């Protein structure tokens, strides 16, 4: 496998852990860290060949920025659905 494809596969394999981390941050109410994690995911997923995941993360990031915490759980689930 080409080294870039290996990195893309590694990224996909780590998505469940990233999602678990997002949910944990939300549960703990650490919205600043959650915003940063969503921003990172939104910026990288498309480059790793997962534009739908990136777009869903961007939506959640915007929601987090606007302070609509009540919608975040559903939006994080939506990221998970795109990653599946």
């Amino acid at each position: 496998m080409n080294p870039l494809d290996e990195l893309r596969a590694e990224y996909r394999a780590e998505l469940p852990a990233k999602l678990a981390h997002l949910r944990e941050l939300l549960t703990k109410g650490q919205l600043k860290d959650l915003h940063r994690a969503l921003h990172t995911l939104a910026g990288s997923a498309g480059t790793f060949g997962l534009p739908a995941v990136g777009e869903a993360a961007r939506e959640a990031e915007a929601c987090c920025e606007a302070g609509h915490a009540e919608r975040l759980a559903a939006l994080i689930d939506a990221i998970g659905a795109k990653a599946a």
Partner: protein
Amino acid sequence: MTVVKSPGGVVYAHSGSADVELTGARTALSPAEIELLVLIDGKTNVDELARRAAPLSEEAIKKALEKLVRAGYIVPAADVTSAGIDPGDFFSSAEQGVASLKKNGYFVCIAHAAAPRKIVKDEKLSLLVVEDDEQLAKLVRTYFKMEGFETRIAGSRAALEAALREAKPSVVLLDVMLPDADGLDLLAAMRRHPAVKEVPIVMMTAKSTRESVLQGIRRGANGYVTKPFNVDVLLKAVKSVLGVK
């Protein structure tokens, strides 16, 4: 060409070629021309453009606008309405179009083309990737290594400072949002530092608003690429600011 006056002055709009210029991997336009091209939105008049583009002089703005009109990048907004399109709706639709393009994997890429130069024998181009997302930094490093670059990674302001002290890179890819610093502040600091002020810098950011692009250009970035990006396009931008093929 008829120039239509709005109450506060002339209003210009992009032609199709302006959008091609703003999303291409190379540009031959000057920083002032790029700045105006980014600011022009079909609604803002020249007086307001001048206010936003400060500290550009009135004369510089006039010259840049004339050149952009001559080159066909901008047209008076009346040319848009003459096609029966309301400018407000037109640009609102355009913004939606950009959002849709982004959704489908497109991105903004602006890079000033440096004077062409040849790589001398045994010269190795070196790239410093300033990015705190380890996986993304690793992907960029791997790709550029495959393309013959010596590549290092710095994930923070402290790591960037250490890397610059160690060796001056040929080019820097700089993330805007770092855990311990604002990339735009680092850009400004590098532009003030005598040892590294000439090093080309391409900003990488998930923010693609006009304002964020402008901030990068104003503070001296040679290029601006929005995330998510395609690594091939990133390479083209880097080669463009280095002046190599």
